[in-house]
């Protein structure tokens, strides 16, 4: 691998790593979903520092230029991360659905309870509720 390319790669990967850490510190990302990014970053960094590894990989899978092998590794990581994101979206979707459904039923129960309380007040408190009402007007 060309040493210029090597330096360029290391710089980009380092910048990316710094960005990740900053976002993590600001709590804009949660660690749970960032682990895959960190792993990808680490692997690419190792490959950039030890180009022999990428040269070996290039020969093994029959790629002509080592640069393309670097791209291939990156592309594989991107695919894995995207797949995991689709999984996360599906899971969140399920959770939101459950929340909305249970919330709707709870809301109905609260509505019914409120109505019942009003009715009960009306029935019980010939004295209580009316007096309360009066004092309200006075105040």
């Amino acid at each position, binding site marked *: 691998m060309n040493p210029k390319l090597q330096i360029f790669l290391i710089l980009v990967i380092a910048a990316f790593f710094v960005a990740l850490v900053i976002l993590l510190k600001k709590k804009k990302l949660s660690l749970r979903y960032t682990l895959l990014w960190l792993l990808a970053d680490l692997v690419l960094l190792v490959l950039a520092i030890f180009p022999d590894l990428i040269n070996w990989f290039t020969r093994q899978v029959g790629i002509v230029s080592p640069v393309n092998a670097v791209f291939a590794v990156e592309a594989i990581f991107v695919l894995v991360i995207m797949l995991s994101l689709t999984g996360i979206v599906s899971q969140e979707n399920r959770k939101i*659905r459950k929340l909305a459904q249970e919330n709707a039923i709870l809301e109905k129960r609260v509505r019914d309870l409120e109505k019942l309380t009003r009715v009960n007040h009306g029935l019980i408190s010939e004295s209580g509720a009316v007096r309360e009402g009066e004092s309200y007007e006075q105040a």
Partner: protein
Amino acid sequence: MKILLIIPAYNEEESIEKVVREIEEKCPECDYVVVNDCSTDHTEEILKQKNINHVSLSANLGIGGAVQTGYKYAMHYGYDIAIQQDGDGQHDPAYIQDVIQPIVQKEADLVIGSRFIEKNGFQSSFSRRAGVRFLCGVIRLVCGVKVTDCTSGYRAAGKELIAYFSRSYAQDYPEPEAIVSAALAGFKVKEVPVIMRERQGGVSSLNLMKSALYMIKVPLALVLRRLMMKRIRGEKR
């Protein structure tokens, strides 16, 4: 026996009151609940003003999520039978007795009201019928259940199936998939003839693009279901 009618409604301001009043008139012994799937029109106001029993979803979940809310409601209030009926007036409450009969007599857990058995009343367009026939073929292939109107939203579920559906119910376009998942979980499925009308208001959820997508997505979902669930013969779950 406690019977609940589940009426999913999305933007049905024109028809929802008529549908509910018809149910109250023709089937006074049944309770009903309208599930308002976060409608963007005046459905919610109408439900409140006219004192119609309803639950309101705070996010739009689609027909599957709305119907499942109804099953959760049925589960929570301990209903023995839950009947699904569309909020657009296509389904005549006069057939409620017909669809619950097989459940009362313990012949079936899921009963589907089919308009294609006696071929009376509103029969829908030719392409829709062809699509339905194809999907019914797929259903027969993946779970061996013979149905003629697998997209019918007029159906009744027994107590155990209510519990099952409230835990897991197909989403997006759930009607055919719900049949397969119930059948594969060991519930008995039966069809009875009903007569349907044309919708009284609102617009159908399917247009040309969506229909094409539907015909790709639903068969895929059905086959996936088959792969996901091991079939339990005879006994439930």
